């Protein structure tokens, strides 16, 4: 099954680290990704820029609103993700537990639907008749 591991971190912490500490963390992240990749479970990864760079768009009362900043203002922010293909939730949790993010932030494990609307029949996602 496919799972996405969502890394929620306090992004204000990063600039406060020394260069040496930053190198340590980046090394740990790279080794983590290397291990997932060599184990054949990692499908893709992505890192997000700071939430300050975010913009939200919504249409309310037929008017488009464009706002600066992220959607949710929480203590931790979504900083990146890994999509992995593993046999079950237990395996996904064991990879989440190895993430350096688990030490300073939170890793959310979310199962993904197989395929997308572009590849699957719509009826697959409808509620049963």
């Amino acid at each position, binding site marked *: 099954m496919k799972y996405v591991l969502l890394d929620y971190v306090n992004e204000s912490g990063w600039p406060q680290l020394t260069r040496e500490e930053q190198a340590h963390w980046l090394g*740990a992240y790279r080794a983590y990704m*290397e291990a997932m990749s060599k184990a054949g479970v990692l499908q893709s990864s992505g890192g997000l820029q700071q939430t300050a760079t975010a913009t939200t768009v919504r249409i309310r009362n037929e008017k488009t609103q464009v706002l600066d900043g992220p959607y949710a203002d929480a203590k931790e922010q979504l900083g990146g993700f890994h999509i992995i293909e593993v046999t079950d939730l237990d395996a996904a949790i064991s990879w989440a537990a*190895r993430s350096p993010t688990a030490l300073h932030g939170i890793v959310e494990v979310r199962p993904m639907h197989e395929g997308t609307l572009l590849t699957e029949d719509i009826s697959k996602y409808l509620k049963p008749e």
Partner: protein
Amino acid sequence: MSESIHPAGNEAQARETVESVARRSYGKLVAFLAARTHDVAAAEDALSEAFASALADWPAHGCPENPEGWLLTVARRKGIDAMRRKHRDELAGADLQLMAEGLEAAASAQIPDQRLALLFACAHPAIEEGTRAPLMLQVVLGLDAAAIASAFLVSPATMGQRLVRAKNKIRQAGIPFHLPGREELRVRLDTVLAAIYAAFSEGWSDGAGTDAAKRDLAQEAIFLCRVVTELLPEDPEALGLLALMLHAEARSGARRNAQGGYVPLDEQDVARWDARMIREAEELLLRASALERIGRFQLEAALQSAHVFRRTTGRNNWEDVARLYESLFAISGSPVVAINRAVAIGASRGATAGLQALEQVAADVRVKQYQPYWAARADLLAKAGAGKEALEAYEMAIGLERDPAVRRFLQDRREAAKQASQRCPAENGKL
């Protein structure tokens, strides 16, 4: 209820008594309540209601003289009430009678200790192997599903379902609550001991002691094994397991330095080991060997003992250690043992011999995601002068490790290997 020792006991005191009775007697009470009905879940429900009643009653009326008996009487009443509600229309005569039996006896007399029977039920071959240890921790020690889930790295919902399923199985399949017969006992005890060891290993993996629930798990496992050795004092493997766990636990404090860094066994400060625990472990091992039936846990305990000998006397005994792992591998066939054997061979006969031994497990898919395999491989490769390959293996080990202290230790090793290979590039790829 019965007479009270503390006529005006306050709430905190009552809570403390409830907690201490829960810790000490939970399994005994569940075992007694479920012994005849096979309904562990119902026994636990009734017992948790009884604990809630105790929290309400004891602060007002003082703690009863016989808290266990008090709880058992209330739990039985609650159990009977629940049964009546469930079978409003039918006659659940037989079950009701079973539950009511001994209702009076319970409050007065000694409650027989049927925890061992309960342990056997939890580790019954009909229960899925991975669920046996969690089931024991819940049913015998009263740990909640969420704490167990965190320790075993599964979601609380999944753990809850597995526990419910296992309890249903005990009830529906009529898994017996008694000690197996003589011939069967040995085989069945192995599964009990294996589950206890699984609980211990989950607890021990948290070397930093950052997670209180896990830290306790190692202690709880030792407690469970003590129950087994007290009730079956003549079983060498139970003694062996207790010795093994005490040896490991004796060193737990020395696995971290003052800065919180990881310290491997051969660099630990021997003075920080718990001498009392080591002495007890050695005595247990001696008792076990007198019973003349060798087994997996005794061999593992003997290995621990050999490590202690090497560190305290300074005498190199890696060849003995390698031979012990050889015997252990013959019994267990476990890839984990094979990795340790390779490390011992590497220490006694050189890195190349160690790498050759490690090659035998390389094909096993299970080791590919097992940190100690990669760390062992990396160390051996570094020693053999294969710098580039060593760095790759360290990278895998670092990526697979959960414990930040061990991860940092591996990163330091990787850095050292990198610098060594840069110092003498000619040695690179000498393998």
